């Protein structure tokens, strides 16, 4: 069995590979899907677990997301964004949907005390050194406090922006603009070309 690729090299090259693979997956190519699974399963599972915390629930949602990648590969449009970002968008939305469904919200509150402002550091052990993610962390450190916490609570915490505003004790409008400004700064810092 092939090991998941956690250090696949430069972002752009990987995205192009993935795009070509998704085209083959859309035609029902199972071998291509295996390679896509190996490239996506760790980022998908990691992000979902970051949001949901509960490992078994995260595994279930990650399965749904990867199956969704298989099912909807024909809908991926490289003109609208990269392959990795397409998959991560599906993963994050699913995780957030799960958080916001009532039952799981109750479960989550019971299982874990809120730990909203923990950074990505607590998963560092599980992540193989990866230039791109090191860069993401460095860029995150370059944001103002409120920008950084707003982005992290919304993305890693799965909180809506009104919830973020409440957690940080700042006005709604402030959070809206801080999230946007923070992301734009991240985008420029990481030289994202979209």
């Amino acid at each position, binding site marked *: *069995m092939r090991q*998941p690729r*956690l250090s696949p090299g430069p*972002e752009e090259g990987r995205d192009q590979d993935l795009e070509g693979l998704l085209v083959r997956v*859309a035609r*029902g190519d*199972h071998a291509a899907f295996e390679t896509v*699974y190996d490239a996506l*399963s*760790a*980022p*998908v*599972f*990691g*992000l979902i*677990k*970051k949001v949901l915390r509960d490992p078994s629930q995260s*595994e279930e949602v*990650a*399965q749904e997301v990867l*199956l969704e990648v*298989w*099912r*909807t590969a*024909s*809908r991926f449009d490289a003109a*609208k*964004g990269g392959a*990795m*970002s397409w998959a*991560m*968008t599906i993963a*994050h*939305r699913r995780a957030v949907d799960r958080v916001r469904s009532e039952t799981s919200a109750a479960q989550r509150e019971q299982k874990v005390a809120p730990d909203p402002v923990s950074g990505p550091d607590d*998963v560092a052990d*599980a*992540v193989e050194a*990866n230039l*791109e993610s090191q*860069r*993401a962390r460095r860029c*995150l450190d370059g944001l103002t406090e409120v920008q950084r916490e707003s*982005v992290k609570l*919304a*993305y*890693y915490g799965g*909180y*809506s*922006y009104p919830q973020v505003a409440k957690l940080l004790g700042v006005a709604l*409008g402030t*959070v*809206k603009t801080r*999230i*946007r400004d*923070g*992301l*734009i700064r991240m*985008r420029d810092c990481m030289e*994202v070309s*979209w």
Partner: protein
Amino acid sequence: MRFQRHDLHTLTGSYALDALEGEELGEFERHLDRCPSCLSEVRGLRETAARLAMATAERPPAAMREQVLALAERTRQLPPLTGETPARRAVSRRARRVWIPRFSVAVAALSVAAAVVFGVNQNSAQDQLNSIRSQLTSAEAHNHALAAVLAASDAHLVSSGTSHGGAVTAIVSPHEGKLVVVTSGLPALPASKVYELWLLGPSVARPSGLLGGAQNGHTDPVVAAGLAAGYKLGVTVEPAGGTLRPTTAPIVDMSL
């Protein structure tokens, strides 16, 4: 309008991080359709968020690989979307409307049944079923599974209102192990959500199909298979594409 254009534009970041909910989400998505610069910004911010995701990568349990690959083996893929321009979309909508009337006799009859049966006694339910059958035989039954359930000698009709409004009607054939589900008057959902059907057994909730978008308040018939004694029909609201297990409380839960 509740939001100024300026306010809406600042929501690009929150939208890219899935931090918008409810009415505001719908409002921003409508705005995106008319605001190319917002759309372009959202795409860039989504790419940025994906880089943040890479920083949390974590290898899932090894067993998950075989499970997902096995699930893919028996999951049909969506066809590609054809036609990008609004003009072409309009044509395809028209084409669909021409094609649908084959089903329309059954759909119309079942919808009437849903309206009539809800709160009416079983005898008239049987009459409705007979009436649906007689109309269906004269229609071209190109969907064999649908026709087989409706024609089954043990077919019976069950209907119930939902907690969200509207009604769900099922034609059930225990002998065939199948049921046909139609609905009327269910509230429309945002594009990111779907109504999912479940066969609820004593210890299982089996995903049993997704309801398509409604036409004139009615959804097209969905045939669900794998019915066993004691099973109930449930309907939940799930993320688009459906889920493997229900994640929300059923809006209807009916004995078959």
